[in-house]
């Protein structure tokens, strides 16, 4: 009995010491709660997310994705894919003209605001998240051309510059601008996994344009050619993909190219 009480007191003392040393913040408590809830809730959150994709609208799918990613705050690829899917959603097909562009603009703003919020927890992958954020306006405009008129002065280039400048400040260096086009493969894979072929095509289109940023012209030409081949294949055109299969940077896309 006495040994038991000593053990409890020792454990309490160790806990108090650990807390005073670590000085936890509210975010840490939240992370701990999410870590504890994850095993019990995550499988059902995924099931609910899949159900929403089958029977809900884009708002509901995105809301479910946010619930899911609240449990996985450091999964930046997931954030980028779900935000991209929401921003690139075709919207209400009954809408036309300015109404449709305004809805696309609102979706883009929400997606970027949500990704901005996700930056706090992205840790060492924050730069990658910023690169994906820089990509998003380009893709959204490719998907909904009417959106360009609603963007701030400088359009997609200015928006991308804003995020890339932050990434540079965070220590990524000027290479971050060149890197953007190479991120397309992973991003494209995420969208194809989610069944969003149109989104993947928009990403490829934007990546082909962005390959002009690469200073090594030989590398840029080769990369752009491979991206074009993948794009043609996804468009259903007969294509010889042997050059793409020889390029291991495209490995994430191989399941969708066979």
């Amino acid at each position, binding site marked *: 009995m006495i040994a038991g009480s000593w053990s409890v007191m020792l454990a309490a003392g160790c806990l108090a010491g650990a807390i005073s040393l670590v000085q936890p913040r509210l975010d840490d408590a939240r992370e701990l709660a999410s870590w504890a809830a994850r095993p*019990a809730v995550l499988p*059902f959150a995924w*099931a*609910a997310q899949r*159900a*929403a*994709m*089958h*029977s*809900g*609208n*884009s*708002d*509901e799918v*995105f*809301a*479910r994705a*946010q*619930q899911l990613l*609240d449990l996985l705050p450091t999964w930046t690829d997931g954030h980028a894919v779900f935000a991209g899917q*929401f921003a690139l959603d*075709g919207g*209400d*097909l*009954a809408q036309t003209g300015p109404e449709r562009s305004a*809805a696309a603009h*609102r*979706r883009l703003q*929400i997606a970027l*605001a*949500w990704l901005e*919020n996700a930056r706090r927890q992205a840790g060492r992958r924050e730069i990658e998240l910023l690169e994906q954020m820089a990509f998003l306006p380009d893709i959204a405009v490719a998907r909904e051309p009417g959106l360009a008129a609603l963007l701030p002065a400088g359009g997609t280039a200015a928006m991308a510059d804003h995020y890339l400048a932050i990434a540079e400040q965070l220590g990524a260096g000027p290479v971050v601008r060149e890197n953007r086009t190479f991120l397309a493969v992973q991003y494209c894979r995420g969208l194809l996994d989610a*069944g*969003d*072929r*149109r989104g993947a*095509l928009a990403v490829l289109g934007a990546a082909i344009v962005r390959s002009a940023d690469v200073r090594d012209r030989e590398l840029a030409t080769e990369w752009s050619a491979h991206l074009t081949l993948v794009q043609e294949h*996804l*468009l*259903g*055109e007969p294509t010889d993909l042997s050059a793409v299969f020889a390029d291991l940077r495209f490995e994430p896309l191989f399941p969708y190219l066979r």
Partner: protein
Amino acid sequence: MSRRATRHPTIFTLQRCLRTAALPALAAAVVAFTLAMWTEPMVASAAAATGARAPWLSLPIFVCAFSCVVTTVLFWPLLAARRPGADWLRRLQRGPLHGCGAALSGALLASLLVCAPLCTVYAAALGAPSIARTHTLVPAPAEPLLSARRPQLHFALAAPLLGNELRLRPLASLPEGPLRASRVRVMADGAPLATTTAEFDQTGQIVRIPFVSRTISALELVLEDGTVPLFFPTGSVELIGASEQSGLANGLFLALLAQIPLFVALAFACLAGAVAALPTVLAVAVGVLFVMTVGGEGPLTAALQGRLQGHWLLTTSVFRQCVPSLLLGSTAMIGAMMLRRRSRR
């Protein structure tokens, strides 16, 4: 109420369950509502995403059912083997289930009383619409593939329906040639339903076609252009009814549906209790309850979502979803009766 009636196991269990389940369910509702407001998702239209709040509605319902299950199993000695007082009760309760059925009905009544405000008032606070509409899934034809080779699909409704909106969500196959979105014209009883066509090029796209209220008995989808074959299984064409139903009645019906997991859990407790001791019975009952509420098996998950999205629940399709769970629970009860009769011999 006569003295005899108030001393019935149903009333005893009802009182006990109400006492133990009401406050935890209320506390869970307060916590869930706070969390729902705190984790408000960033979306274009909060009203369109109310279905995503289903977990916050299911939490207090789960807490209520959990409290009722634990209370009933602990309270009624014959729900587990070798409990103190069981022999006395067995002599007094001469029915095939020794009063377990009455205890179960008391728990169900208590849970219904707690769930009724949760499914009406609390659901409305979470954003459930005050009116509900019927969502009828149009049965698919025998070969539901719309492609260049088969450019027309005919859907016959079981009975003419008064509707004002049609929702299409087909599955898209790989394109048969260079990708060109498939444009589909929708005809109702031979006349075009909308002036524009619906375009699809990948799975998951949803197209809403609102129209002036009219009675529809047959639908026809005509492929006008495009290379993407579209598959329209049952569930991909949904007709929204024009008449408005009461959201309150919808909530009350949801409260009834919310009793199904509790019924199945207690039925399994009754079955296990014929041979197993208290810890096993509790584990079985809570396990079944968890699978049927949080795990999403059974009709409750879809019903919660339907309530929040404004789908009228009193339909044959919802009833059809309930049948397997009700059969499972009833079979467990029959099994419990047989086991108890054998152990009495």
